[in-house]
């Protein structure tokens, strides 16, 4: 279980995030909601260890974690808004490199790379360099870089922006898979597609203040789409062999 307790973040003397209590359980897909400038990316940056907080702590499975530690980076996969890709490496090279950097062996990395390229329909673009990709393709590559990591926690920043309809469906199926395999997923966006009714928790940010919502009626109001049980979504799962169900 992921817990945020009394988190305060400020920049230039101004408070940008204030989260007294926010939780996420295994298998939760959490929608980080809020208008532009509400602090969604800042909060993800903090959880991923890119930014430091002024006070407060993160707990994972009851233990306090240091977000900038190597151990936490092993546990958390973060897909940045722009994908965080390297302009001069090809799609294939970037996915392979990420796979190696997250600890997979050479043959395993090659296998993961091929699998993810097929999954996100990047085969035509495997030899394209990062700086030759369109915004939507960069987004798909970013998602590919995120899911080659067998992490406990997945953070996606604005994954829906620039994604075409088929890719949005694939991304939804990835989220279903991660959910059913017991991972915690945080997705930050200011708009969620109505087809993705798999969110079972929402952290609403308003002027930096985080409010945790998990009741069905609250989610219906916030997300404007139906709340479905895990079983109803199970048929949408896809094959990601290295992400095994959590024990």
């Amino acid at each position: 279980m992921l817990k945020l307790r009394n988190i305060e973040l400020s920049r230039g003397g101004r408070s940008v995030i204030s989260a007294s209590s926010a939780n996420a359980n295994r298998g939760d897909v959490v929608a980080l909601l809020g208008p532009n400038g509400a602090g969604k990316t800042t909060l993800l940056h903090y959880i991923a260890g890119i930014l430091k907080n002024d006070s407060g702590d993160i707990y994972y499975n009851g233990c306090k974690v240091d977000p900038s530690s190597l151990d936490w980076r092993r546990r958390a996969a973060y897909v940045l808004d722009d994908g965080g890709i390297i302009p001069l490496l090809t799609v294939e090279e970037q996915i392979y490199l990420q796979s190696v950097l997250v600890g997979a062996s050479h043959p395993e990395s090659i296998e993961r790379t091929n699998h993810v390229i097929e999954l996100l329909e990047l085969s035509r673009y495997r030899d394209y360099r990062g700086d030759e990709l369109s915004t939507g393709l960069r987004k798909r590559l970013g998602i590919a870089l995120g899911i080659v990591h067998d992490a406990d926690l997945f953070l996606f920043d604005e994954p829906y922006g620039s994604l075409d309809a088929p890719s949005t469906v694939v991304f939804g199926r990835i989220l279903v898979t991660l959910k059913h395999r017991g991972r915690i997923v945080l997705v930050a966006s200011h708009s969620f597609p109505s087809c993705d009714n798999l969110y079972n928790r929402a952290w609403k940010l308003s002027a930096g203040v985080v409010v945790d919502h998990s009741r069905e009626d609250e989610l219906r109001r916030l997300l404007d789409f139906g709340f479905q049980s895990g079983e109803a979504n199970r048929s949408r799962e896809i094959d990601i062999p290295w992400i095994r169900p959590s024990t």
Partner: protein
Amino acid sequence: MDTTINVNSLSRQLYKRGTHRLLGNPSFGSLTAFLTALLLIRITANVYLSIDLWRREADIDAVQIASAHFVFFAVWAVWIGALASLRISLALPQPSFIDLAPHGRAFRLRFIRNIVLLRPTNIGFGAVVVLTVIIFSTISGSWNRIVARALLSLLCTFSGVILITAVASKILKIRSDIQILEILYLLFLVVQNPDVASVKGRVCILFGGAYYSFSAFGQMVLGIGLAVVVALFVLLLVKMLSVVSNLFRRQVRFSPMERWYWRILHFRSWLLLYAIVGPVFISSGIAPATKRWTLALSIIFGIASYLYFIAQCESALNEKWRCSLFENGNIRLIARSVPTHIVLMAVPVMGYVLFC
């Protein structure tokens, strides 16, 4: 998938595809290359002159000349090496998936190491030191003192690079800022004007018209140590100035083009220029010709920097908004930055008139 792919090859691929060339502004890069070439030509000419005089059986103080070169190279390498490796580390986007991956830092270090080892300037530095040892050992007839000093200067260089890189990585985050520091430091080395001359009947090397004896190890260590301290001081000065200029920018009302001007041409780069040319003008031990060259270089810097500002604005306006500074009377928008720039450029001129 190509099965020959591996992490080492990817690091080399980044170098081959020119990631290290994305390190900053190409015009600044060309200026840095020009100043480096100028220094190398000056040193090569001195070495040639020394060999020529030795063949005519003149009394050459080979140990002093070699030691002076070692200090000079070490001072150059400490600063440029530290700043270059910092710029290389910024060549990969931050944050990227590499920073967020568990073994990402190791890959970043491997990438820096590969490029540093492959950079012609860094390979050239080692080669020049070895060459200097060979030439001046032959001239002096003994090698042990020269080799000991070369090793000492290399040791000081490596420790200095590590120390300055550690400090600079906490302070500098912008590639063009780092390039400006590199250029200013190279200008400082150029105005040192290393020159072969005869002192008390022995041929030795002078810096800025002054003779430095390198008879003791301590003096050489002092020279390199001083360079490290000066470099650290400059870095701290940059940090302090950026804090002050941030406060200043927040409080004073500027037009958008003035804001743009100050964001492209930082005030701290001017203050650094003054910090470098000031001592040259004030010092009585520096030749008038060197002072005139310093003034000329600072004027060139002023003109080039304004042209750079105009080029940056024009390129951004063309690319983003498809308009130009040179149409529809838009040129008036930069009018307020012209007197500011002239005042900033006039400071070295006034310094020259007052002190020289």
